[in-house]
């Protein structure tokens, strides 16, 4: 059983996650910008501590379609993470990557989903890299899994994950783009033991 609970580490953890989110999102933005050959700016990530039961409607209407990319995390830190994109942002990124017009719109085919998975993979890996280099912990992500479905149903996965330990979850929002701004959301879900590993590695204690 962990030394800290999510409730106890809130303020400290929120600051740490915001900083990691900042670096991670920076890395991710650079990676995507160079892949797409465009210029991207990013804003300082917002970190929100939410009631688990509110998570389903945290980023948009519960039945709005969104894209979720899910990775399991292993080695020094055990758990999982999720990256979420609203449909318009996802469509924009896929269009850029596939060399289509910016306002092209269609249902995603296998190729589009694969491209999105890769974008999610890069973004998640950049975030995890930041966490790993700040903490000196080895973090190994799994292959990415993707789902395009109703927001509440995708967010039920982190809600259940957090719900096992408490009633709160942390949602990190980043914004990047040039003329079009893209909203992405991270949810990091360490297993309970991994909280104190992260905090201890950063030299923090209660």
């Amino acid at each position, binding site marked *: 059983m962990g030394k800290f609970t999510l409730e106890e580490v809130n303020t400290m953890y929120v600051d740490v996650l915001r900083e990691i989110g900042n670096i991670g999102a920076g890395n991710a933005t650079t990676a995507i910008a160079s892949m797409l050959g465009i210029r991207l700016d990013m804003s300082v990530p917002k970190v929100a501590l939410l009631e688990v*039961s509110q998570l*389903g409607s945290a980023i948009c209407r519960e039945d709005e379609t969104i894209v979720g990319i*899910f990775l399991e995390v292993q080695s020094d830190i055990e758990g999982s993470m999720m990256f979420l994109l609203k449909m318009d942002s996802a469509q924009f990124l896929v269009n850029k990557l596939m060399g289509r017009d910016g306002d092209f719109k269609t249902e995603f085919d296998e190729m589009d989903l694969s491209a999105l998975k890769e974008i999610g993979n890069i973004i998640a890996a950049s975030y995890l890299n930041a966490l790993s280099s700040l903490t000196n912990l080895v973090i190994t992500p799994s292959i990415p899994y993707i*789902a395009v479905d109703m927001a509440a*149903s995708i967010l039920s*996965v982190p809600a259940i994950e957090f719900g096992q330990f408490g009633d709160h979850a942390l949602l990190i929002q980043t914004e990047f783009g040039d003329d079009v701004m893209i909203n992405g959301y991270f949810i990091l879900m360490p297993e309970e033991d991994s909280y104190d590993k992260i905090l201890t590695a950063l030299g923090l204690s209660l």
Partner: protein
Amino acid sequence: MSKVIKVGMADLNICKSPDIITTLGLGSCIGLTLYDPVTKVGGMVHYMLPDSTQMRNNSNIAKFADTGIDELLKQVLRAGANRTRLVAKIAGGAKMFSVSGSSNISNIGERNALAAKAKLKQLRIRLIAEDTGLNYGRTVELHCETGDFYIKAIGKPVKKI
């Protein structure tokens, strides 16, 4: 005119004819309804986890199958439902990401569905219809006028069970 009553995640509520009770975007959670076809009183719980006894933090009773179904039963009976006539329907319990491992969380949808069946059996309430599993989200509605239970999913026709 009928009202639409919304049930959130880890939430429950009751409903009387002609109203409709709904929950949006069930993923691995379960939406379970109890309904008395004579008095047309029903209710829905949207729970997240199968078993409150294995959790340290179990203060929100609507979060768990065992405590959530108990509470829903209590509330529909209080609202005028007859226990012997009650029937149950369930939906949800999807596996949203096709994660291969057998971790605690990867089969949570399936475990949630099994928990409903075990609890209903223990309470001697008949489960007359279900739409669970697979890999997509569901929005569900119970129409208390008729007892019909509608399931909507993205890119699929509306299903009535």
